[in-house]
């Protein structure tokens, strides 16, 4: 069961990461990147690493996504034009 979970989580992470890289919209790729973080959290949890999972949860998916989302407003041209 664990093996299958790992396999499918990896598949999910891979596809999300792939789309995060390919996506033209940066906001979208940041959100998708958060998906990578979420998948990692699951995997870390499965791997019996709750500390790392918690860290990845608050940092990888929480704070760094927030920082990215706040940051990309000021580093992309299309957003600049809107305001």
């Amino acid at each position: 069961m664990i093996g299958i979970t790992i396999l499918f989580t990896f598949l999910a992470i891979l596809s999300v990461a792939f789309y995060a890289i390919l996506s033209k919209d940066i906001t979208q790729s940041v959100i998708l990147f958060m998906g990578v973080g979420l998948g990692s959290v699951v995997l870390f949890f499965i791997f019996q690493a709750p500390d790392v999972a918690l860290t990845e949860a608050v940092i990888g998916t929480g704070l760094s996504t927030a920082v990215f989302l706040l940051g990309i407003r000021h580093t992309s041209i299309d957003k600049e034009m809107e305001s």
Partner: protein
Amino acid sequence: MNLKKEFRLKHIVLSLLSSALMLSILGLLSHVKTNLHKTVGDIVLSLNMQTATANAVTSVVTFFRGIDTVGEVTVLFLATTGIALMLSSTQRTYKKVVHQESFILDIGSKMLLNVIVLFGVYVIVHGHLSPGGGFQGGVVIATAFLLLFLANPNMKLKHSILTLGESLSGAAYVLIAIISLFKINILLGNFLPHPVSQIGELVSGGIIPIIYIIVGIKVGSEMSVIVEYFVKEDYLKEVPHA
């Protein structure tokens, strides 16, 4: 058109190359030994009982590899300073955001703040007993502030307090290391009593929970500063283009 094609070609070649590289590395990595007889981790686990810390990861982070954590805290501190250097400036003025006072948002965010901060404190304080610790808890506290900022953009943090928390906790961490040198002649040693029988209790593990609390304060204040700078960047008055 031609250029575009070339560009795609470059991409295809590069991606093929990177996949070839990774596939070949993959082939190699199948040689990686997974069952080692005696890693440092095994020794650490066998020694961990002496530290009277229920969470072995915590004891590794704060004790066995304590200087790593000092370094890590320093890295965060440097990053914060760097971000402050970049995003704070005397020429920058922030515009007053027309902020619709929303009762629910206001009260809701403040209520949530308390809960989140409490959770953060819990995570920090129980770092040596359960998963979590100073880093995680500190970041949780920072996310509480993030929530607050999002709810009320005009809010201002008291920088002097944050700086105080940041500096003093950092200094305290180093001081603990140095005091330990004088007490038991080892830097960052566990000089407080930590009887093994206490394992699993809140007060156990000697300096380990203290260090994690200090780290929590430091990470919390630093992350809050980072969050504040990034949020404030939204409300810059001028957006000059050179």
